[in-house]
């Protein structure tokens, strides 16, 4: 059986550190890591622009970078811990036929992150890291990075 292709996306800092704590599972697949911070010691890495809600043109550039990347890699699964790059990657992934996982940051203990709430309809597996935030129609809790 062909190894599945995974696109693993996170913005720099805490989001990326949380994503890298999933490395044991991500490395079982043909995974391309994506961030706006340089990352070494992974087999495949792509850097994207640093963008957030404060800059619309940068967000557009980020979206286009992620779209091109998706078309090149054609991942079976897209996974993200946040924030903006992960949101876009899941939207693109879902629309173009990938299966998608959102793991909301462990920093969001009392309410989901903004991107975590907005990504809901694009996430096939929609996870929070806090049991208190689980509701009947999601998100689900399946453990945490800590």
């Amino acid at each position, binding site marked *: 059986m062909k190894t599945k292709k995974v696109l693993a996306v996170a913005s720099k*800092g805490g989001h990326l*550190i*949380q994503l890298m704590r999933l490395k044991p599972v991500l490395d079982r697949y043909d995974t391309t890591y994506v961030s706006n911070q340089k990352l070494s010691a992974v087999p495949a890495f792509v850097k994207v622009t640093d963008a957030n809600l404060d800059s619309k043109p940068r967000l557009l550039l980020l979206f286009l970078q992620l779209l091109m990347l998706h078309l090149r890699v054609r991942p079976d699964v897209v996974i993200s811990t946040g924030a903006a790059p992960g949101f876009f990657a899941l939207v693109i992934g879902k629309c173009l036929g990938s*299966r998608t996982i959102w*793991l909301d940051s462990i*920093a969001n203990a*009392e309410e989901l992150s903004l991107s975590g709430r907005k990504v809901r309809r694009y996430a*096939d597996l929609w996870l929070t890291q806090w049991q208190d935030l689980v509701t009947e129609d999601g998100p689900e809790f399946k453990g945490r*990075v800590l």
Partner: protein
Amino acid sequence: MIFLTVGTQLPFDRLVRLIDRWAERNPQVKVFAQIGDTDYQPRHFESCTFLDGEAYASAFKKAEFIIAHAGMGTILSALMAAKPVVVFPRVAALGEHRNEHQLATCRKLEGLKGCYIAYEDEQLLTLLDNLQGLEGEQISPYASDQLIDAIDNFIRQP
């Protein structure tokens, strides 16, 4: 050595000023800091705006103690390196963040070994005055097996 970091996205004057006050009274303890866009410039320890990956790792490695805003990246890094981390949350009501998630994080992390939370100035200063009594806690470099397995099961589905 103490490494103080407030992340790189937002200023955190209140914390940097407090540590400066403490450093003035404790010149024997070396402090180094990454203070981002913080306006207040500390006079009693060395600081810089931004450290790249390598410089950050080096400062982190040299430090015996970490002091930080309640950013999960820093907290996780400290626990992975078994360094005690003193955490002082940003308060959105004081204009230090966009929302109060750092306070929420701290309430959830209370009691976590290796992580020492201070909400008030005095609490922070008390922790610093008893620095040698703080112990680090080594955590696994990876997420819980439960989470790893759940994600693996999902990816593996046809």
